[in-house]
C-alpha cells in the first residue's frame, strides 16, 4: 500500500500552518538548503554518542587549524539508546540531523538494509578513495546490496580479559598475564578459576561483573549469532547462543557474578574502583572506560590478558556517516576521512583505547603498552584478538536480541529464575519484540 512519505513532515507542516494562523511573530522557521559546498567558511556539525575521543584528544581543534575556514560544531549524547531514536526522528523529518553522525555497529545492519536513501554514498565523495584502507569486513558491514558505502569505520572492538591483579593475588590466583591466560584458556577453565576465587576471595567481590556480560563475551567470538548469512533469524536454534547462555546462566546461578548489569546499574561503574568484581571481558574501547571509572587509585591494580575461548572476539566499534540531507557532503567527507585515517586512529588508541579499524592504523599500534594496566602490551593483545576474531554476521535486530538475552540472564543471577525458565522467557520475549 502506497502511503504519504512522512507523517512527521506532515505534522510539522500542520503545526507550522497553525502557527501562521495564530499570527505568531516568530515566523515558520523554515530554512532553505544552503548551496552545495559553497566556497568560504563552513561550519560542520558533528553529533556523536558516548566518547569517540575526538574532542577529548584535540583532533577537532587540530583539523580546524589545518583547514582554515572550517569550524566544527560538536555535540554528544552520552547514551546511544537515547541518541539513536532522536536521530531517527530527525532523519525521518528530513531536518535537524548533523553533517556527520556516529552509527553504532549494532545499528549498521539496519542502516544498510532499511535506510540507504537517508545516508550519503561515500564512494561519490572525497572519502571514496580511503575505503580500501579499512579492514575489509568492517567496510563490508557498512555496504549495501548495491555496493553503496554508507559509513567509515572509526574503530573495532577486539576483546581481551581485564582483571584486578591485586584481588586475584589476595585469593591466591596467578596475577601474571601469561600464567592467567594459560590457566584460563577455555571458558570452562575460566569459570573453574572463578570457583577457586569465590572460595578465598575478599568479601563482597565476585569473579566477574554479570552473567549478561559473560554471555556477550562468549557469543562475540562466534561468526553466526542471531542471524545466518542469508539474513534469517537463527537465535532460537543456534547452538552457540544456547551454549553461551547456559554457560553464563550457570555462572550466574552459582554466585560467580556480581549481578551488575553493564552500563545500566550505577553499581557497575562503581565496581571498577571498589573491586566488586575481579575480572571482566573488555573490548579495547573499555580500556578508557575502566581508567575513567577506577580513577587514579586503580592504576596498577588492573591488568589485561588474552580472552578465554582462544578465538578472539569482537564487541562494538562504530562508524561515521553523512546524512543525505547534509549541505556540506564534500567537506564532511574530508573530515571523516581524516578522523578515521591511520595516524588519527593510532593516536586515539594510545589515548582512549579505541582500536583502529584501518590496516595502517593497526600496524602503527602493535607495540603500544599501557602504564595504567601495569604496562600491559595492549597493542599486541588486541591486534592478536582482532586477527583471530571471526567476522560476525550482523542483523538489524542484534541490539534488541542482545538486550533480551542479557535481561534473562540478569533474572537468573539476581532473581533466582532457573536457567531453563529464563531461556524460555527470553525466547518468548524475543518473539514478542521483533515478530
Amino acid at each position: 500500500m502506497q502511503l504519504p512519505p512522512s507523517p512527521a513532515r506532515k505534522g510539522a507542516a500542520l503545526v507550522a500552518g497553525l502557527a501562521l494562523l495564530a499570527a505568531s511573530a516568530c515566523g515558520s522557521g523554515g530554512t532553505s538548503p544552503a548551496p552545495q559546498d559553497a566556497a568560504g567558511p563552513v561550519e560542520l556539525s558533528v553529533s556523536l554518542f558516548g566518547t569517540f575521543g575526538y574532542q577529548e584528544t584535540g583532533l577537532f581543534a587540530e583539523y580546524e587549524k589545518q583547514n582554515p575556514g572550517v569550524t566544527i560544531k560538536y555535540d554528544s549524547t552520552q547514551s546511544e539508546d537515547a541518541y539513536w531514536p532522536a536521530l531517527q526522528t530527525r532523519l525521518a523529518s528530513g531536518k535537524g540531523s548533523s553533517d556527520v553522525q556516529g552509527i553504532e555497529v549494532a545499528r549498521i545492519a539496519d542502516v544498510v538494509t532499511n535506510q540507504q536513501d537517508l545516508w550519503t554514498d561515500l564512494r561519490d565523495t572525497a572519502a571514496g578513495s580511503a575505503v580500501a584502507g579499512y579492514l575489509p569486513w568492517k567496510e563490508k558491514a557498512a555496504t549495501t546490496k548495491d555496493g553503496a558505502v554508507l559509513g567509515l569505520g572509526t574503530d573495532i572492538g577486539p576483546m581481551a580479559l581485564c582483571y584486578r591483579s591485586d584481588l586475584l593475588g589476595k585469593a591466591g590466583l596467578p596475577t601474571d598475564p601469561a600464567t592467567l591466560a594459560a590457566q584460563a584458556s577455555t571458558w570452562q577453565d575460566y569459570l573453574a578459576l572463578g570457583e577457586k576465587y569465590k572460595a578465598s576471595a575478599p568479601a563482597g567481590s565476585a569473579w566477574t561483573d554479570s552473567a549478561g556480560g559473560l554471555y556477550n563475551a562468549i557469543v562475540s567470538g562466534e561468526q553466526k549469532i542471531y542471524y545466518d548469512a542469508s539474513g534469517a533469524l537463527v537465535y532460537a536454534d543456534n547452538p552457540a547462543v544456547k551454549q553461551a547462555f547456559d554457560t553464563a546462566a550457570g555462572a550466574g546461578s552459582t554466585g560467580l557474578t556480581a549481578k551488575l548489569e553493564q552500563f545500566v546499574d550505577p553499581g557497575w561503574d562503581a565496581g571498577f574502583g571498589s573491586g566488586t568484581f575481579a575480572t571482566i571481558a573488555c573490548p579495547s574501547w573499555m580500556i578508557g572506560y575502566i581508567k575513567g571509572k577506577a580513577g587514579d587509585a586503580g592504576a596498577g591494580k588492573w591488568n589485561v590478558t588474552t580472552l578465554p575461548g582462544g578465538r578472539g572476539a569482537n564487541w562494538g566499534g562504530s562508524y561515521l556517516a553523512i546524512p543525505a540531507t547534509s549541505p556540506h557532503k564534500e567537506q564532511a567527507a574530508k573530515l571523516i576521512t581524516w578522523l578515521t585515517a591511520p595516524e588519527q586512529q593510532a593516536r586515539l588508541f594510545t589515548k582512549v583505547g579505541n582500536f583502529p579499524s584501518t590496516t595502517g592504523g593497526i600496524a602503527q599500534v602493535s607495540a603500544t603498552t599501557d602504564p595504567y594496566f601495569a604496562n600491559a602490551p595492549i597493542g599486541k593483545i588486541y591486534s592478536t584478538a582482532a586477527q583471530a576474531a571471526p567476522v560476525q554476521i550482523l542483523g538489524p535486530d542484534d541490539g534488541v536480541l542482545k538486550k533480551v538475552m542479557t535481561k534473562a540472564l540478569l533474572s537468573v543471577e539476581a532473581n533466582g529464575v532457573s536457567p531453563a525458565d529464563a531461556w524460555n522467557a527470553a525466547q518468548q520475549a524475543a518473539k514478542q519484540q521483533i515478530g
Partner: protein
Amino acid sequence: MTLTLSRPEPAAPDAPGQRRRARRSRLHAFEARSAPYAYIAPFFLLFAAFGLFPLIDTAWISLHRYRLGSSMSFIGPDNFAWLFTNPAFYNALLNTFTIGVLSTVPQLLLALGLAHLLNHRMRGRTFFRVAMLMPYATSVAAATLVFAQLFSRDAGLINWLLGVVGVNPVDWRNGSWAAQIAISSIIIWRWTGYNALIYLAGMQSISQDLYEAAALDGANAWQQFRHVTLPGLRPTILFTIVVSTIGASQVFGEPLIFGGGAAEGGALGQYQTLGLFLYQQGWQIGQLGRAAAVAWVMFLMIVVLVLVNAALARRRERAA
C-alpha cells in the same frame, strides 16, 4: 440596537456622521459577538496542534506497522491484537497499579497528617510550608539519581542503615517489591508536600466556628479531626485522588532513571510501568505502531478512570 439603526434619519447634513456611527456600532456588535471566541482561540489552536492532532495521528499510526526509520504500512488492528495477547503488557498494567497504590496511599495520608500539623499556630510556619514544596520543585531526574544512590546495593545509605539494625542488604534494583517500594518512595517524596499544601488550603477554608462548637461539645483533637476536618476536606481529598490517580497511571521518569535509562524495568520487568512499556516499544525497539497502540489504550484507561472518579464524586455529593 437594531431599532436605533433602522430608525429613519431626519436631517441630511448629519448623514455621513450617522453612517459612521452606524458602521462603528455594527463593528462593536461584531466585536462583542466574536471577542469571546478570539480570547479562547489561542488555547484551542494550541490544543488542536499539540493535543488533538497528536491524539488523532497516534490513532492512525496505531493501525500501521511503522518501524522507526522506515515507512508505514497499514495492518488494521493487528497492533492491538498483539498488545492484548502480550503478557508484558499485563505485567506493565499490574505494575502501574501496584506502584500507583504504593505511592498514592502513603503519599496522601502523609500529606493529610503534615497539613494537619502545619494548620496549627507554630513558629516558622511559612518556612515549613515553603520547605514542603521544595521536593515538588526538584526535577524528577535529579531526585531519582539521588534516590538511586541511596538505594544502591553495595554502597547505599539505606542498606547501610539496615545493616546498623542487623538487616541483610537488600538488592533494591533487582528485587520485585524492593524496586517498586524504592520507586514509590521517590514519588512519595516528590508529591507529598504538594498535596499537603492543597490540604492545608482546604483546611483553612473550614470555618473556625465548627471547631469551637465541636470543642464545646467535648470533642478532643482526634475527634475534631475526624468529624470536622475530614468531612470539610472531602472535595479537596477527591481532587487530590483524581490528580494522583492520573499521575500514577503515567509514571515514567522515576522507573526509567531508577533503571539506569533502560526501559525494561528490571530483569523480570518487575518495575516496568505502562509508560516505560510504551517507551520501550517506540524508542528502544523502534516499533512506533505498537507504541501508538499502547498510548491509545492508556488514554482510554485514563478517560475511564476520570469518569469513574467523577461518578463517585457525584454520588458522594448526592449522599452528602
